[in-house]
């Protein structure tokens, strides 16, 4: 283990950096997707509700690994087939797309449930004062929904951080992929994978502690 740390320590820390980059980018886009599709599921419009539900069901029905292969190998072919011959997608782009789509579906469900947990009277009171639907949603309903959503969002962030490891299959040099290479080169699989697991664990514990702090602060400020 010491040998691995000595020789490959910096490489694995760098790989953890790539893992975090992938996770944070994906979480950012997942939040946007989740907000968009979560709102679609809550507005009073049948067509919007159906679009929201189809997205969630479709994505939840696909294993992430299949989605990753499809985005990485399938989408470039599709776009090249449409005439954009020089189109290329690297494994970071494909990884972010696959993971954002995946996490976005779960975020959409969390946001939909959060919005629906806010008493209908809040929206009605806001509308009765002359506020538009959008203003009522963003100024009155969502700020209250966020409170109930935070534990689920933290949980989803942790799942997504761990799901980055699945993207090792499309060759992105994140922590799991790098560990695989390290253990193949050095031949100390037990030590290499133990270190890898501990690194994930430490980062996740730090993140969840920080999130708990944020959660506490938000709940106190009322």
């Amino acid at each position, binding site marked *: 283990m010491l040998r691995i740390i000595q020789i490959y320590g910096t490489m694995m820390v760098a790989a953890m950096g790539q893992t975090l980059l992938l996770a944070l980018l994906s979480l950012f886009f997942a939040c946007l997707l989740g907000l968009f599709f979560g709102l679609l599921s809550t507005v009073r419009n049948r067509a919007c509700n159906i679009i929201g539900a189809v997205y969630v069901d479709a994505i939840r029905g696909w294993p992430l690994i299949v989605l990753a292969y499809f985005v990485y190998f399938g989408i470039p072919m599709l776009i090249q087939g449409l005439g954009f011959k020089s189109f290329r997608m690297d494994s970071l782009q494909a990884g972010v797309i696959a993971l954002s789509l995946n996490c976005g579906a779960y975020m959409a469900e969390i946001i939909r449930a959060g919005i629906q947990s806010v008493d209908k009277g*809040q929206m*009605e*009171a806001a*509308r*009765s*004062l*002359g*506020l*538009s639907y959008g203003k009522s949603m963003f*100024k009155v309903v969502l700020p209250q929904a966020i409170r109930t959503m935070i534990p689920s969002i933290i949980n989803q962030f942790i799942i997504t951080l761990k799901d980055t490891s699945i993207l090792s299959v499309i060759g992105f040099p994140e922590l799991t992929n790098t560990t695989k290479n390290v253990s193949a080169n050095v031949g100390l699989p037990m030590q290499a994978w133990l270190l890898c697991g501990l690194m994930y664990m430490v980062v996740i514990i730090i993140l969840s502690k920080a999130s708990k702090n944020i959660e506490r602060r938000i709940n106190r400020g009322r």
Partner: protein
Amino acid sequence: MAGNVKIHVSNLVKRFGDLEVLKDISMDVTEGEVVVLLGPSGSGKSTFLRCLNRLETPSGGQILIDGHDMTDKHTDLNKVRENIGMVFQHFNLFNHLTVMQNLTLAPVETKKATRAEAEATGRKYLEKVGLLDKANAYPSQLSGGQKQRVAIARALCMHPDIMLFDEPTSALDPEMVGEVLSVMQQLARDGMTMVVVTHEIGFAREVASRVVFMDGGYIVEQGTPEEVILHPKEPRTIDFLSKVL
């Protein structure tokens, strides 16, 4: 004093699926009038009020608010709603905002006022409802009666010319009913046009310019408080009053 018609409702129908809640309601409310709506639970009083500011979409008939056709899809509902205050049974204060923020949110967001103007107006109405000292409190720190008075002040901050009240005292402990009713009475005295759903018969007798009794989706009987409350003619009105008095 036959003033302007502020609310004109003709042949209003409202269905929820197969359930026809409002069958044929017609009513005019003139400026400064205080109309008290009475009726058994489930008779569609809330639905009627909510149709007036289009929280519910009518299934038929016409509603004119200050001449604006609320059933016309070209009407800017948000704009008309700025002039119709509504007070709910369960207050519906914005729980994540302080009292003052509750009062200033709509005036600022609809660009009716700058923040400073909105706060000045907010203080004026908080004083009017006797809660100036609660400006920085959160709704969870208020009693039911205080919450409802804040809700009234919040509606007034938009300077509406019509106020709708949906059983504003029904969720209150008995000792807090008076403080809310007296704010409403003051409002009526100041000339506000009001439509009030309530079971407070004493309030209806003292404050109403007209009492309307609704049942089964129709207006069964209406007139002065004298006529409807003291000398009801319809059997259903008599039966209802004997239960609430």
